[in-house]
Every structure is written in structure tokens, then in C-alpha cells.
């Protein structure tokens, strides 16, 4: 499978080899091999329970994995290499690593007790120890970019789902991440609000951000992804360009999945 990608650049931002993960007796990741090059937009598709969200959470060290290798920016996730052995990171070092990876959640997870602006400057000020004035300037630029600058003083409860997700993207970008992870960013949205979030993500992809997106929006993935991954039952079944996977899937299961998804579109 991976043989098709020997021509991609050798330095990867994310590299997984034989990644395995179980919840109790249930093995949700059964050996994932996957690479993400800098500037690449990778969409992971697949049925619910295929392990795609779990894999995404492993990249950000929100979930520990049991076996295999996973590196981000050449560093093993959650660990450091000392004298040829992996040592668990200190909580502070692990937090510092996570701060460099942006994550956008299905249910937004904005901080409800803070205004839009406060949500965005919270981590830069508290975690990166940036000056408040600088953080506000950056936040306003980001809010402008996602089209939410007029709602800077609103509380999350006063926003629509699409607006919340755009603020959540701005919040993640305020940490100036090298990598953005999206966990089903449009699944909790009313259909008419999906477009505004996808537009912001497309703009981000165009700016050269490295993105890993778990999504059900196949047609959208076709438009912005450089690489599409089809996962099923904890395995990567097939990967390639979106066109290859959608129009000319090599695997029977991919074919069935794509046919089903395209019918519902």
C-alpha cells in the first residue's frame, strides 16, 4: 500500500508505523501505517468505529497507544529518546508538545465562561506567556480571517454551531501550530452551517497549513485533500489521491464505502 508513496519527500511531519491501540479487549487500531508531509492535507474517511478519531487523538497524545511507533516532527509522541530508550515525558514537556498541535473538536469545546476573544487569548497568555496586548492583536487578526471579528465579545452560548466552530479554529490557530487536527469538525452542525466552516478550512489549507481531517464530507475531502485515507476496522484499507479512491478504488471495501457515501450525497 505505502509503496505508492515512495516518491513523497522523506521528512514527514507525522509518521505512524504499525500503530496499535486497545480499549480493554477491543482493539480499535490494528497496525496503522501512515505519513503526513509538511504542507499536506490528509483526509481520513471511514465508517463510525473504524478507529479514525482514536488515531487522530493519538497524534496529539490525548490517547496513549499500546504498540508501534508514532512520531510528530521526528519526535516520538509523549516520549523522548534518551540513551536509546524511550522515556515518558514530564507533564510540562508533554503539554509543551501538545501546544504546538492545534485540534478542532466535533463539539467545538469552547470555554463557555469566556467571551470569544477571551477563548482565543487564553492559551497564548496562560500557556505561551505572551503579552496580552500582542495576543489580542493576533486574536483579532484570526477572528477577521474566520469572519467572526464582530462577535469578539459574545459568549459561545450566543453563537450558532458554525460560528462556534470558526471560533474554535481561530483558538487553535492562535497557538501558531505546525499541524492542525480536525475531528469531524462539521458532524455536529446543521446542514446549512457546514459550508461556512469548510470554507475557513479550505482557506487554511490554501495557506499551506499541514492538516489531518477526520470527516464524513467526501466531496469536500475530494476538493481540498492531497491524500485520502480510507480506514475500516482499525486498519488503513487504502490510501491515495482523492480521485483515485473515489473514482477508482482498488479495494472491494473501499468501493462499497464510496458507493454508499456518494449515493447519500
Amino acid at each position, binding site marked *: 500500500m505505502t509503496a505508492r508513496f515512495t516518491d513523497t519527500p522523506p521528512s514527514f511531519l507525522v509518521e505512524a508505523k504499525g500503530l496499535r491501540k486497545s480499549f480493554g479487549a477491543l482493539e480499535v487500531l490494528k497496525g496503522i501505517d501512515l505519513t503526513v508531509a509538511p504542507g499536506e492535507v490528509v483526509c481520513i474517511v471511514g465508517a463510525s468505529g473504524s478507529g479514525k478519531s482514536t488515531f487522530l487523538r493519538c497524534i496529539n497524545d490525548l490517547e496513549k497507544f499500546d504498540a508501534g511507533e508514532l512520531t510528530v516532527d521526528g519526535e516520538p509522541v509523549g516520549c523522548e529518546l534518551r540513551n536509546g530508550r524511550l522515556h515518558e515525558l514530564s507533564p*510540562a514537556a508533554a503539554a509543551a508538545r501538545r*501546544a504546538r498541535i492545534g485540534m478542532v473538536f466535533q463539539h467545538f469545546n469552547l*470555554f463557555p465562561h469566556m467571551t470569544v476573544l477571551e477563548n482565543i487569548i487564553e492559551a497564548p497568555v496562560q500557556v505561551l506567556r505572551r503579552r496580552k496586548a500582542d495576543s489580542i492583536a493576533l486574536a483579532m487578526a484570526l477572528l477577521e480571517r474566520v469572519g467572526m471579528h464582530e462577535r469578539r465579545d459574545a459568549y459561545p452560548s450566543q453563537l450558532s454551531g458554525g460560528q462556534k466552530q470558526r471560533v474554535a479554529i481561530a483558538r487553535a490557530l492562535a*497557538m501558531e501550530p505546525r499541524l492542525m487536527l480536525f475531528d469531524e469538525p462539521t458532524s455536529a452542525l446543521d446542514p446549512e452551517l457546514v459550508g461556512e466552516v469548510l470554507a475557513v478550512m479550505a482557506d487554511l489549507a490554501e495557506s499551506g497549513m499541514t492538516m489531518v481531517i477526520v470527516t464524513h464530507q467526501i466531496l469536500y475531502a475530494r476538493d481540498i485533500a492531497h491524500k485520502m485515507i480510507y480506514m475500516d476496522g482499525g486498519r488503513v484499507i487504502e490510501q491515495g489521491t482523492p480521485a483515485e479512491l473515489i473514482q477508482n478504488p482498488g479495494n472491494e471495501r473501499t468501493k462499497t464505502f464510496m458507493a454508499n457515501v456518494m449515493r447519500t450525497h
Partner: protein
Amino acid sequence: MSASLTTTGGVAAFASDAGRAAAPRAVTRRARPVRRVAEALVLVAALWIAWTLVTNEFFHWDVVGRYLFDGLILSGLRLTLLLTVICMAVGCVFGLVLAVMQLSSSPVIRRAAGGYVWFFRATPVLVQLVFWFNLAAIFPDIAIGIPFGGPKFLSVDANVLVTPFFAAVAGLGLHEAAYMAEIIRGGLNSVDRGQSEAATSLGFGRLRMLWRIVLPQAMSSIIPTTGNQVISMLKYTSLASVVALQELLSSAQTIYSRTFEVIPLLLVAAIWYLVMTSILSLVQRRIERHYARGAAR
């Protein structure tokens, strides 16, 4: 019954231009006989209470008036307030520590906190109070040093250290900590898991996440219950009269043991407790409103 009221005329009124307000519906209200009788009974009872308070001379309102601002009563009131504040502070700080311990991933730490809560909730606070007061009976001197018979760096006679005030603060505060631990733990658990995930993914450490993200949200469920605890504490401080602390109740007792005006002096104490709890209720409502910001409105 009211079906006939929604005539086409009413519909037409609503459908018409917004500039013309619909006329209010003319509905004859249903007679509510049971409610009328109940209201009458309540009024009679209230009138009787008011009448007896005024006319029954055994209340001795003149005596109540004389002692309401008595120096001894006021100093007892001050001590009651001080004790409430200190015991609640001890309860909240220890309670927060215990709550966080109970959420730890280490079973040793979790069980230790659970054991504390179990013990201090399962024994009467009065017993604890008297126990602390008599601490010297088991530990004649209290020292800082290496345990299990090692050297001592600082040693104090327990009879000197354990004053009535110390016993009251230890007894009431540590008992309160067990309750506050449960209240705070419930509050922390009520915060959506997505919040701590978002904070973690933004690079927050556990302490800063607790302080900036989780605890402020937990407050909306912690504050109302804590307000009740403060009000209970205010009244529980009267138990400190058994360890010879001159708080509000024992000040009243001191006076009536001399003058035998028991009822009027209990009324003096009751009036001050009522005033203080009423003020606390107002403050509680203020704080609740502060922590409700950002909630769906």
C-alpha cells in the same frame, strides 16, 4: 374549555400587520375554591403568630430590646462571624485538596481522600469538637520532627496549643472539609470532558486547567450548595459553646444564667442568626449571578 376562544377572529388578529396589536383575550378566570380556603388558613395562622408575638408578655420584648446591642452579645456575634469565615476557609481549602485527590489516577491517594471523607462525615461534629478539645489526653505534647520516635525539632504542650478557638476551628473546619470535598468533586465532575480535552490540546498543565477552565465552570454548581453550607456553618458554630468559646449563643447563655431571662436572650441570639443568614442569602444570590455568565440565556 378554551377551544372556542381560538376563533378565526383571533387567528386573523395574529396574522394581521405587526403594527396592529391583537386585542387581549377576554377570558373569565376559573374559580379556585381549594386555593381560596388554603390562602385563608395561611392568613389566619400568620395573623395569630403576629398577634401572639405582640400580646404574649412572656416574650419580654423590652428585655430583647435591651440586650440586642449588648456588648457581650456583639462580641459573641463577632466571634461567630470570625469562626464561620475561618472554618469555611479551612473547609474549602481542604475540601478542594480532597476533591482533587479523589480524582487522582493513583488508587492510594484516591482511597486516602475517600477514607477521610468517610470518617469525618460518619461521626457527629459535636463528638469531633469535644475530641479536639481533649487532644492533650492522647498527645500530651505536639512536636514537629521525624515520626516513629525520631528526633523532634519543635515541641509544644498540647494544653497550650489546643485553645477553645483551635478546637472549634479544627472540629468544625475538618468536618466541613469532608462535605466540601463531596460538593467540589460533584462540581468538577459536572464539567463536560470536552473542556479538559480542549484545554489539554492547547497545552494547559493540569493545575492551570483546573484553575482557569474546569473550576470556574464547576462553580455554578458548587456555589449554591456552598452557600447553604455557609449558612449551616453559621449555625453550627453555636456548638462551640460546649468547648467554652464565647460565641453568640454562649454569650446569650452567659447573660441568662445570671438574669434568668432565658426566652428573651434566646430571641436576641435568634434575631442575630436570622439577620446574618438573610445577608448571606443575598450575597449568595449575587455570587451565583456572577458565575452564571456565559450560560445559555
